[in-house]
C-alpha cells in the first residue's frame, strides 16, 4: 500500500470526520438556539394516545410504510428509499472496514452483501437522478445542491461498489477515488441537504409530540378503498 492510500484511508478520513462532527455540533447548537414552541392547552383527541406515543410513532414512521398515504401508495418508491439508505450505510461502513477491520472482507458473505447493497443503491440513485430530471414537480423544486448531492452519491456508490474487494495490489486508483470522495462527502454533507438526517430526530420529535398530545398520532387505520356502507 502506498503512503498516499494509507493517508487517504486514515488521516484524511479522520480529519474529514472531525470537521463533520464540528459542523454538526454547530448545526445542532444553532437549531437549539431557537426557542421551542410549547402547548399550554389541555390534551385533545383520542384517549388512547399521548405525547410519548406520538413521539415514538413519529420516530418509527420511517419503518412503517403503511403509516402514511405517501408511502403506502408508492411501494416501489419506498423500497427504493430503503435500498438507497442501506447503500449509504454500507458505503460508509466500508470506509471504516477497509482501514480498521479489513479481515471482515475475507468473508464472502460480508463482501457480497456489501457489494450487492451498494450496487443496488447505485441503481436506485440512477433512477433518482432520472426522476429528478424528468419529473416536472421534482424539477421545479430542485436546487443545484439537490442535483449535486445526488450525483455525488451516485458516483460515490459506484466507486464504493468497486472498492469492496479492497485489493490495493491490483491497483490503487479505485480505492483512492473512493476514499477522497468519502472525505469530500463527509465535509460537504453538513453544508448540504444530505444533512437532513441530522434534523430528522428533531422534526419528527416535535411533530410527533404535537400530534400525540392532540390525539392524532398514531394515525387510525384507514378503511378499505371505496365507500363502505354500514347500514343499521
Amino acid at each position, binding site marked *: 500500500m502506498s503512503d498516499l492510500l494509507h493517508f487517504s484511508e486514515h488521516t484524511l478520513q479522520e480529519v474529514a470526520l472531525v470537521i463533520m462532527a464540528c459542523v454538526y455540533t454547530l448545526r445542532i447548537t444553532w*437549531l437549539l438556539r*431557537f*426557542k*421551542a*414552541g410549547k*402547548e*399550554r*392547552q*389541555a390534551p*385533545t*383527541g383520542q384517549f388512547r*394516545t399521548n405525547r410519548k406515543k406520538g413521539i415514538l410513532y413519529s420516530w418509527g*414512521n420511517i419503518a412503517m410504510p403503511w403509516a*402514511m*398515504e*405517501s*408511502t403506502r401508495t408508492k411501494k416501489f*418508491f419506498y423500497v427504493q*428509499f430503503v435500498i438507497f439508505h442501506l447503500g449509504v450505510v454500507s458505503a460508509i461502513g466500508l470506509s471504516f472496514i477497509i482501514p480498521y477491520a479489513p479481515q471482515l472482507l475475507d468473508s464472502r458473505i460480508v463482501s457480497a452483501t456489501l457489494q450487492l447493497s451498494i450496487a443496488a443503491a447505485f441503481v436506485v440513485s440512477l433512477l433518482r437522478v432520472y426522476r429528478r430530471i424528468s*419529473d*416536472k*414537480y*421534482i424539477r*421545479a*423544486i*430542485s*436546487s*443545484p*445542491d*439537490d442535483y*449535486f448531492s445526488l450525483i455525488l452519491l451516485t458516483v460515490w456508490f459506484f466507486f464504493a461498489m468497486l472498492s469492496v474487494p479492497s485489493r490495493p495490489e491490483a491497483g490503487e486508483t479505485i480505492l483512492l477515488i473512493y476514499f477522497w470522495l468519502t472525505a469530500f462527502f463527509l465535509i460537504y454533507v453538513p453544508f*448540504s*441537504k444530505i444533512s*437532513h438526517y441530522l*434534523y*430528522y430526530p*428533531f*422534526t*419528527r420529535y*416535535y*411533530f*410527533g409530540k*404535537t*400530534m400525540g398530545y*392532540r*390525539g*392524532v398520532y398514531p*394515525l*387510525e387505520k*384507514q*378503511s*378499505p*378503498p*371505496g*365507500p*363502505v*356502507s*354500514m*347500514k*343499521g
Partner: protein
Amino acid sequence: MENAVSSSTEERSHKAQKVLERMSKKLNRQMVGSLAACVHCGMCTDSCHYVLSNPDDPTYAPAYKADRIRKLFKRHFDWTGRVLPWWVGAKSIYTDEELEELKDIVFGKCTNCRRCSINCPMGVDFATFNRMARGLLVSVGVMPEGVAVVSKDQWEIGNQMGVLKEEYIDTLEWMSEELSDELNDPSAVIPIDKMDADIVYSINPREVKYDPRTIADAAKIFYLAGENWTMPSEGWDMTNFGLFSGDDDLGGAVALRLYEKVSELRGKKLVISECGHGYRSTKCEGPNWAAHTVPFEMESSVLTMLRYIKEGRIKVDKSKNKEPVTFHDSCNNARSCGLFEEPRELLKLVVEDFREMYPNRSENYCCTGGGGAMSMSEYTPRRLKSAKVKADQLSATGAKVVVTSCHNCVDGLTDLIRHYKLGMGVSQLVNLVANAIVVPEQVAVPEAVETEVPKEAVAEERALENYKILVVDDEPDILTFYSTLLEDNGAQVIQASDGDTALALARSEKPDLITLDLSMPGTDGGEVFESLRKDPELSNIRVCIITGKPELRRLIYDREVQEPEGFLDKPVDDETLLLNVRKILEVGDKPGE
C-alpha cells in the same frame, strides 16, 4: 440574525424589510426544523388537493409552495444560504410585487389543511410556517381584501361576520320563540347570560347570519337533556380569524374575549358548536396565543350530544334520518385536534345508513374552503377547480347527504356540490340529532297540533304571501333562482338586472324588501343602496345585500346611512335565503300591521 436581515437592505421596500425583521421573531425551533429539513423528495406532492386537481401545474406542489418561504429563511437565517444562496435556492425579497406573489401562494394556493404535513417522511409541517408567512404579510397589510375585512370585523365588532349585538340577541329570541312553539312549552327558551350555568354555549356567527336553525336545534337538545345552560350576550363567537390570517394577536384577543366571558358568567364548561377552526382555535390554539391558562373545561358540542345519548338524557330514533349519509372530517378537527371517532359514533346513533368516505379521518381531503378560502373571493375559480378531487370523493360514497362538524366545511362543500352538480345535501350533526330526538311525553307537542302540521307546512309555504320583493342581480341564473324560490313561498317578485332599473322599480313598485347584488354593470349595488337610503320615500324599504364578494362589506357599512337589514354572502342556498328573508320581514306580521 438581525445583521443578516439589515445588511442587505439596499433597494428593499419598507414592507419587505419589515417582513424579514419580523420573521426572526416568529421563528421557533419547530418551524426552523421544518424549514431546514426538507429534502425535496416530492412525497408530499400527491397529498395536496390543489395538485390532484391541477396536475399540469407544479407550482401547486406543497414543497414548491414551501420553498417560496424557505428561500427567505435560507437567505437570512441559514448560513449555507447566506454564503452560497444560489446553490441551495436561497433568495431574499425586495419589492412589494414580490410580497404580492407570496400572498398569492400562502393565501391562494394553500388552505393550511396539514395533509402534506402528515405525509412528509421528514415531519416537515408546512401548514405551520405557511401560517407564519400569512401573519408576516398581514402585519404589513399585504392580504386578500376579504381577510382584511373579516379581521377588521373581528377586531372591532367582536365577531368575524360583523353581527351586531342587537341582531344576535334578536336571533336568539326568534329561535327561542320557535323552540317554544315547536315544543308547545313556554319554558323551552334560550337562556342568555345566566350565571353559574353548567354549560356556556358558544357559536359561529354564520349560525346567526345564515343558519339560525342550528341554534334552535342545539337549544332543543339542551332543553330536552335538562341541561343547565346559557348563551352569552357578548363574547359568544368561538370562531377565530387569527388562525387563518396568521395574526397571533388577533387570535389571542378573540380567544380571551370568550374565555373571560365564560369566567364572568362563572360557567363550568364551555361547549363549542360544530366548527372545525373554531374548535381548534378555542380549545387548542387560543390558550397559546393568549398566553392564558383556561380555568374551565372546553368541549365540542359533538361530545356533549354523544354524552346525552349515552347517559340516556335524550333519546333518539335513527329511523327519522333515513337518507344515506357520509361524513366529512374537518381538517382542523381531525388533523389538528384528533376529533374524528366521536362524530362517527354519534352519527351511527342517529342515522340509518352511514357510508364511510375514503380516505377519512386524519387523511381526509380538505373541503377546499378551509384556511379562510371562503372569504377570499379572488381565488374562487381556483378553489372550485381544486375541489374536483373532493367532488369525486363525495360522489363515490353514493350518499345523499354529507355531514360535517364544521361551518366552514358546510360552505365549502355546498359550493362545490353546486358547482359539480352532485345533488347532495350538507348537514351538521346537530341538525340530525335534533331531527332524530324523541320528544318525551311531558313536553310532547299535543296530538291535535301534530295533526295540524301539514296545514302549518302549507302555511309556511305561503309565508311570504302579500309581500312584494324586488330581486336585483345581473346574473340571470341567480335572478331566476331567487325569484322562483320566493314566488314558491308566496311572494310577489319583481326583477331587475342592473342598478338603474332597480332604482326605477323601487320608486314605482315600493317593494317590502330588496335583495341587492353589489357587483353589477352600470350603477353598482353600493350606489343603489345609498340612493335608496337617502331617498325619504324609499329609505324604509328593507334591504338584504347578497354578494359574492364579502370583502365589499366595507363599502356598505362605511357609508353614512342606515345599515342594510341583512347581508348574505353568495352562494346562498334556498333555506338560508328563506330564513333570512323571513327574519328581515319578520314574517308572521303582515305588512302594515
